[in-house]
């Protein structure tokens, strides 16, 4: 049947990408349908119950700054919070939380169910409908046809998913969920560039069978930090600890002896797995000289005894899993509740996407999340948000929107994906961001909330809170800049205490705050320094901006220098074979991937600076021609 009403946006898949996409599109006012296998698994964490971490926490803050829900849901579902790198500078600090699976899921589901303009429907999607190269809708397993202006596909690990445990394998989207087989076939027919990737998960354990007394406790931070800019610590449920144990030589022997039945080492698994998230068998083979590996014992939730042993992801046969788990300290009597496994799935070469995450091949079809070759909830959620916004813009006939590498980790990730493609599942790291000092967790709101407001995804509550903070920061900075401190006003003892030395001349408060050893709180105790601000988030921001000023200015200069060429538009119908002087290899590359801007072109592998100069000349010349024609 044809479903009677027409949607602006259909989102396929209710994982982390899909839920952010659907919510964003609906927040903008689009009539949105979220279609997923199972409403019970909306917002489900397929793997470890944790959100954030270095680079990933940055993404979560950006999602939040743009009105997304991942941060808020984590504040409601988080049972252990930590700031990683807290001893290092603000740019590389990141928040990480252990989440209660079911609380997290509930928090997401409640938001979905209460979001105006959003409809939920439980059905597997088997097919797309097209008109020429334009998407028109989807067809579900029962043959129901839904029509929409734009479709966002976020099928995660489900496309032609294949689960491996030892020598046995079966088709699934993840353990306990059906795969998406028909849709995968259909996508292969559409000639989208497809590949296989692999990921894995450890066995889960009944926590009552563990001996925690021999493990090291790892408590959360106290006070627990918040993820959302709107969050408050009274949202946090009860907080619990994680524990640390180690593998040992015996564990490693057990694994080595089981390798002849490992799907990884017998060539059954073809997909490429992530190097930074290796299975335990990989770790032991690749780092044979290491005689133990650290294992984090993480609670899965407050209402369950299950724990997640982070660090022993494996697809070894169950008998080997059983033995290896019980070889670890504190795990001697461990009862496995769910075996570990590896999963192989289809992904699409993200070089086939625009920076809006729209496919270059099919108008109105957007891809987000794991199917773009990434891994991780945060990576998926951030892409979902971007794709959802763009699907909304597309449905409204508006121009697409994207973020630059200098604006957000989200911008870095999408640009990396669409220009470099992936050779293994892509995870965010701060070292991927060339403007790392600008892209901090603490200023994601200052970087993005105004943009989000313009796009219509930031609601009034967030906007009001943000505006107050932004203005307070500006005001206090201005005050520090214009308040002079005279050495005569400051007694030597105060100067030594706050500045570590006597003042030799007059300075502004801002100058003094820029010194590495001077804190904002201490500065305010100088005679004549005034009262300052009370809100710790404002104070923090003022202090960071002062301390980073030199570096911020330098990076900003560099951004400006590159900006013009970076954003220079390359028409999609550019005939690269006509560009004088380009090598054949470069011509082919450009023709194949059709970068949208000169900046993207420059980052394709093999494209040289000289090639960019030649392109520039070509563009200019053609522009001249068209101008002459139209004149």
């Amino acid at each position, binding site marked *: 049947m044809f479903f009677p009403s027409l949607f602006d946006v259909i989102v396929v898949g209710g994982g982390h990408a899909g839920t952010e996409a659907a919510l964003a599109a609906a927040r903008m006012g689009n009539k949105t349908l979220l279609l997923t296998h199972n409403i019970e698994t909306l917002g489900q964490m397929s793997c470890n119950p944790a959100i954030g971490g270095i680079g990933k926490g940055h993404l979560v803050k950006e999602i939040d700054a743009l009105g997304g829900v991942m941060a808020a849901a984590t504040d409601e579902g988080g049972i252990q919070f930590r700031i990683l790198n807290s001893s290092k500078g603000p740019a590389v600090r990141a928040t990480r939380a252990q989440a209660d699976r079911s609380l997290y899921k509930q928090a997401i589901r409640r938001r979905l169910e209460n979001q105006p303009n959003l409809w939920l429907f439980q059905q597997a999607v088997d097919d797309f409908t097209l008109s020429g190269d334009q998407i028109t809708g989807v067809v579900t397993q029962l043959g129901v046809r839904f029509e929409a202006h734009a479709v966002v596909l976020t099928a995660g690990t489900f496309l032609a998913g294949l689960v491996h445990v030892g020598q046995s394998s079966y088709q699934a989207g993840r353990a306990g969920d059906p795969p998406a087989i028909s849709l995968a076939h259909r996508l292969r027919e559409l000639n989208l560039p497809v590949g296989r990737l692999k990921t894995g998960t450890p066995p889960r354990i009944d926590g009552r069978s563990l001996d925690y007394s021999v493990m090291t406790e790892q408590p959360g931070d106290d006070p627990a930090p918040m993820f959302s800019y709107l969050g408050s610590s009274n949202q946090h449920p009860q907080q619990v600890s994680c524990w640390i144990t180690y593998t040992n030589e015996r564990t490693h022997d057990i694994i080595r002896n089981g390798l002849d039945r490992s799907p990884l080492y017998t060539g059954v698994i073809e997909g490429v797995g992530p*190097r930074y998230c290796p299975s335990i068998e990989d*770790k032991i083979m690749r780092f044979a000289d290491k005689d133990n590996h650290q294992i984090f014992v993480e609670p899965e939730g407050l209402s369950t005894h299950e724990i997640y042993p982070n660090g022993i992801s494996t697809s070894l046969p169950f008998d080997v899993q059983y033995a290896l788990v019980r070889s670890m300290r504190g795990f001697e009597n461990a009862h496995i509740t769910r075996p570990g496994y590896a999963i192989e799935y289809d992904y699409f070469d993200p070089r086939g996407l625009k920076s809006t995450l729209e496919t270059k091949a099919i108008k109105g079809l957007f891809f987000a999340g794991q199917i773009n070759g990434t891994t991780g909830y945060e990576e998926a959620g951030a892409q979902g948000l971007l794709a959802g916004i763009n699907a909304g813009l597309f449905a409204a006939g508006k121009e697409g929107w994207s973020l630059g590498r200098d604006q957000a980790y989200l911008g870095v990730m999408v640009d990396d994906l669409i220009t470099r493609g992936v050779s293994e599942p892509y995870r965010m790291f701060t070292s991927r961001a060339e403007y790392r000092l600008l892209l901090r967790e603490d200023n994601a709101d200052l970087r993005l909330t105004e943009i989000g407001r313009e796009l219509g995804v930031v609601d009034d509550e967030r906007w009001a809170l943000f505006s107050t903070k932004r203005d307070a920061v500006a005001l206090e900075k201005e005050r520090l800049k214009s308040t002079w401190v005279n050495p005569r006003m400051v007694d030597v003892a105060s100067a030594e205490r706050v500045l570590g030395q006597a003042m030799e001349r007059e300075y502004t408060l801002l100058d003094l705050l820029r010194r590495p050893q001077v804190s904002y709180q201490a500065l305010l105790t100088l005679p004549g320094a005034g009262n300052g601000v009370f809100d710790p988030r404002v104070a923090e921001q003022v202090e960071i901006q002062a301390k980073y000023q030199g570096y911020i200015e330098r990076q900003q200069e560099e951004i400006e220098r590159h900006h013009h060429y970076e954003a220079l538009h390359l028409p999609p119908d550019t005939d690269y074979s006509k560009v004088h002087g380009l090598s054949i290899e470069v011509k082919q590359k450009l023709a194949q991937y059709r970068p949208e801007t000169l900046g993207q072109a420059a980052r394709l592998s093999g494209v040289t*600076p000289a090639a960019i100069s030649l392109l520039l000349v070509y563009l200019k010349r053609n522009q001249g021609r068209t101008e002459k024609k139209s004149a």
Partner: protein
Amino acid sequence: MLQKGMAKTDTIAAVATAPGRGGIGVVRISGYQLSELVLHLLGKPLRPRFASLKKFLDIDGSVIDEGIALYFPAPNSFTGEDVLELQGHGGNAVMQRLLKRCLNLGVRLAEPGEFTKRAFLNDKLDLAQAESVADLIDAASEEAAKSAVRSLQGEFSNAVHEVVERLIHLRMLVEASIDFPDEDIDFLEAADALGKLSGVREQLQQLQNRAKQGCLLREGVHVVLVGQPNVGKSSLLNLLAGDEVAIVTAIAGTTRDTVREEIEIKGVPFHIIDTAGLRDTSCEVEQIGIARTWAAVDKASLALLLLDSREGMTSSDEAILARLPENLPVMQIFNKIDLLPREAGIEFDAGVKRIFVSAKSGAGMDLLRENLLEVAGWEQTGEGAFMARERHLRALDGAGACLRNAENNWRQLEFFAEELKLAQNELNSITGAFGADDLLGEIFSRFCIGK
């Protein structure tokens, strides 16, 4: 939607006249907001489009050269940007000094063809010229690539790569400790990051010192002509210069004041100084001249000891030789072979080169030029090699500065990391790109990371 401001380019400079031509040399500078640069360089603002006679000032206020300065504000200039042209008298060496001064003021050395490219992009060239610009970029980049490869062969390249490798190793530790704080690996604590950094700095310093050799090419070689009176020093200078710059007579002790002349051999500048012949004398004027000779010797990077072939090496010559500074390379030139039955040629005496020439007939002059080039360290590279080397030196200097900043910031890991990254970016211009993914690959292959 959400567009930012318009294009802003950085400022570039290059010697606009072909190297090796005498007369005037022009340094051309293009960019925006050049007024500050003008102030630093000329001391006073310039009137647009007026030729004014100015002193070109070095960083310490000393005068590099005097010449005509012309300022064309955008858009009415060759490139469409603000353009400053400095026309000096200088040969290559002076031009290079002027250029270096500009670079010190934050200006970047222009890529080959970059002025033309900018002119084109700013609508200063018409459509028909477009193809030729493309050709130019194509050729220039090929040329640049070639010269980069050429100068990257052998020891220099190995040394650069060694520095880069050590830098990568350090960065790997730093980035790993930032991105993977939860691992049970001491990336930095055990690794002595600061010690590693000073190791890299030291190695880079050595590399820079060696690269300064290449500086000879930019700065030129200071050659002093010494010898007894009447052996033909002034005659040789005139011959090399192709002009009667010094007085030549049969009277011993003709030259009193030092006579300077710059010549070029295959583009390499040689600053040749003719001096008063050395002998014991009671003439006060001549004594002063001889004192000046020794002063000139002190500043020279190469001495040509002239001798009369008919006499051979006399005890007076040996005395002069003994007085020359120990570390100063010396070539022995045996002149006036036309008076002997003897061909031009070269002889080795206990490892010392003796070149037999005639300043009168010109015999052996090609041989002399060849040997001058060889001593200057000039390898048979083609055009463009000089540009590439200049760039390399800049990159090494830039990397050195970043590493210095890194050392000053080592307590703040994210700044430390930033400076190391910038240092690597500088060196990337020599060795090719090394991106974030490469670095992560390096980390994952070395450490067992991930849960």
